[in-house]
């Protein structure tokens, strides 16, 4: 910002004006005044709390009273690494997150492509709102809706009955459906934005050079849309990884979120240590995503 020297009229008195002059002459102070509150809030409230949680992962628990003993120990991490149940739960959750991501890509791609390249501007704008509305509609209510749909007397089993089939909705497969549903809008929007950035001339060039639809799709569209797909997968993956409400309401199978939620009462230090697992997985995922240039598509 360039400072323009204006000094003809002496500044009028008054606190507001003197303050304005002061801030104008000291842009750094002005910046500090703007940043003080938000930075203090994030550092004290959010990062402070995260530090408190991470610290408690190093505390001991009295085996008889379940009271927290504030003595440094690595036992909680040892428990998580050595007990196979934690490893199984972590692995099951990661698999779930990957399968949900895959399903969401498959479901999101056609509608994103339709919005980006086929629909009229009017339809496209309507569809964007149509995707945003379920994205923001109450998460808990969506899970409840699925609980009703997947129940024994629910719509799914009602539809399967004439074929002599039945489906145990309160299962891992049912949960996979629910997760796929919950995070689908988070996948549609980045893919749509990514596809829209592809210039039509590139597709025409591919056709001119003899590329058939499928060739153009596989060799031109997919590689160009890939960073956007990865960008969407950040949400589908990380949201699945930490959820505890949907798994708790749909199935009795344990996932990272439900384990943390269930053991936090008797063994907060172990829960804190286990919560480092999704943090590490998500950070690794974000690093890979950044390598794949997904952040530019967010």
């Amino acid at each position, binding site marked *: 910002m360039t400072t323009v020297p204006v000094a003809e009229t002496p500044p009028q008195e008054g606190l507001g004006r003197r303050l304005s002059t002061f801030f104008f002459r000291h842009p750094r102070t002005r910046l500090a005044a703007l940043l003080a509150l938000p930075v203090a809030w994030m550092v004290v409230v959010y990062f402070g709390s995260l530090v408190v949680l991470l610290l408690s992962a190093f505390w001991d628990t009295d085996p008889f009273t379940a009271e927290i003993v504030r003595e440094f120990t690595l036992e909680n991490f040892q428990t998580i690494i050595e007990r196979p149940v934690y490893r199984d739960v972590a692995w099951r959750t990661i698999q779930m997150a990957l399968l949900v991501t895959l399903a969401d890509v498959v479901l999101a791609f056609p509608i994103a492509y339709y919005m980006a390249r086929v629909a009229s501007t009017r339809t496209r704008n309507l569809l964007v709102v149509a995707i945003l509305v379920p994205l923001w*509609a109450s998460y808990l209510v969506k899970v409840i809706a699925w609980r009703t749909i997947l129940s024994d007397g629910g719509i799914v089993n009602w539809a399967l009955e004439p074929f002599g089939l039945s489906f145990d909705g309160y299962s891992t497969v049912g949960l996979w459906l629910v997760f796929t549903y919950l995070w689908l809008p988070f996948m549609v929007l980045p893919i749509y934005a990514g596809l829209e950035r592809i210039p039509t001339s590139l597709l025409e060039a591919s056709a001119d050079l003899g590329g058939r639809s499928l060739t153009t799709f596989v060799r031109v569209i997919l590689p160009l849309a890939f960073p956007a797909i990865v960008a969407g997968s950040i949400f589908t993956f990380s949201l699945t990884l930490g959820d505890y409400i949907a798994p708790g309401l749909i199935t009795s199978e344990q996932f990272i979120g439900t384990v943390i939620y269930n053991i936090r009462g008797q063994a907060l230090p172990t829960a804190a240590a286990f919560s480092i697992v999704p943090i590490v997985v998500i950070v690794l995922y974000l690093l890979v995503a950044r390598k794949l240039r997904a952040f530019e598509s967010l």
Partner: protein
Amino acid sequence: MVESTLTRVLLRVGAGLTLAFMYVPLLVIGLYAFNQNVTQAWPIENYSTKWFSIAFENERARDALVLSVLAALGATAVALVLGTLAAMAVSRYRFFGREVISFAVILPIALPGIITGLALQATILDVLGPIGVSFGLSTIIVGHATFCVVVVYNNVIARMRRAVGSIDEASADLGADSWQTFRYVMLPQMRTALLAGGLLAFALSFDEVVVTIFTAGAQQTLPIWIFATLARPAQLPIVNVVALFVILVSIVPVYIASRLAGGAGLTSDRPPRGAVASELQAP
């Protein structure tokens, strides 16, 4: 158009199926709110509006609604102040750590809610408890505001990028002090962005449950009331009515916000292209 007719027909069908998949569950919960029976079987045999008045007379649900509204208003107010300040700093200045700010405001909704919740709960119990802070409306607001900042921030920063910085300087040259410049020059430009960000923050806070369970203590917001009441099958019809209500309360602000934010985009600085929900948009 490069796409063949067949491709376009298939795309239309695929898009329609995905859209149906997105909306059928919302319609189903809407229909169940009118279900006369207590059992949740499909197809619904008798329709009735009797559960609406029963739900309205449920005192605990009403108390929960009041708490939810208060929490959402408080969180929105805090988020508006913090998000606007941060957005003004990041959009108007270059400084060391500028990228970190954009990243830091996104983190609370990028990391799993259970971690944010557990962290806040541990802090309230261990650090704030000894100095006399206990679970209640204020702790709910603090938790919600932390992840609501990002939606205000994203909306305001998108608007600030489109606005020309030299207008502020012109205002100062014409003799306005900082407050007048903010009040008469910057605020009118940001008004719809603030409204959109505020509405989204309200919607985000109003139906939040993942973090709230950890910060509410014994208090019940409406989503927590729903969560707790799910365990009582006899009350499910009331839950369905409240669920429909919650969906409408969260959808309406989003719809208005998406209109306000210009074209279709919620936060996009180049609408309607890249019209991505604000939380998806990393500045």
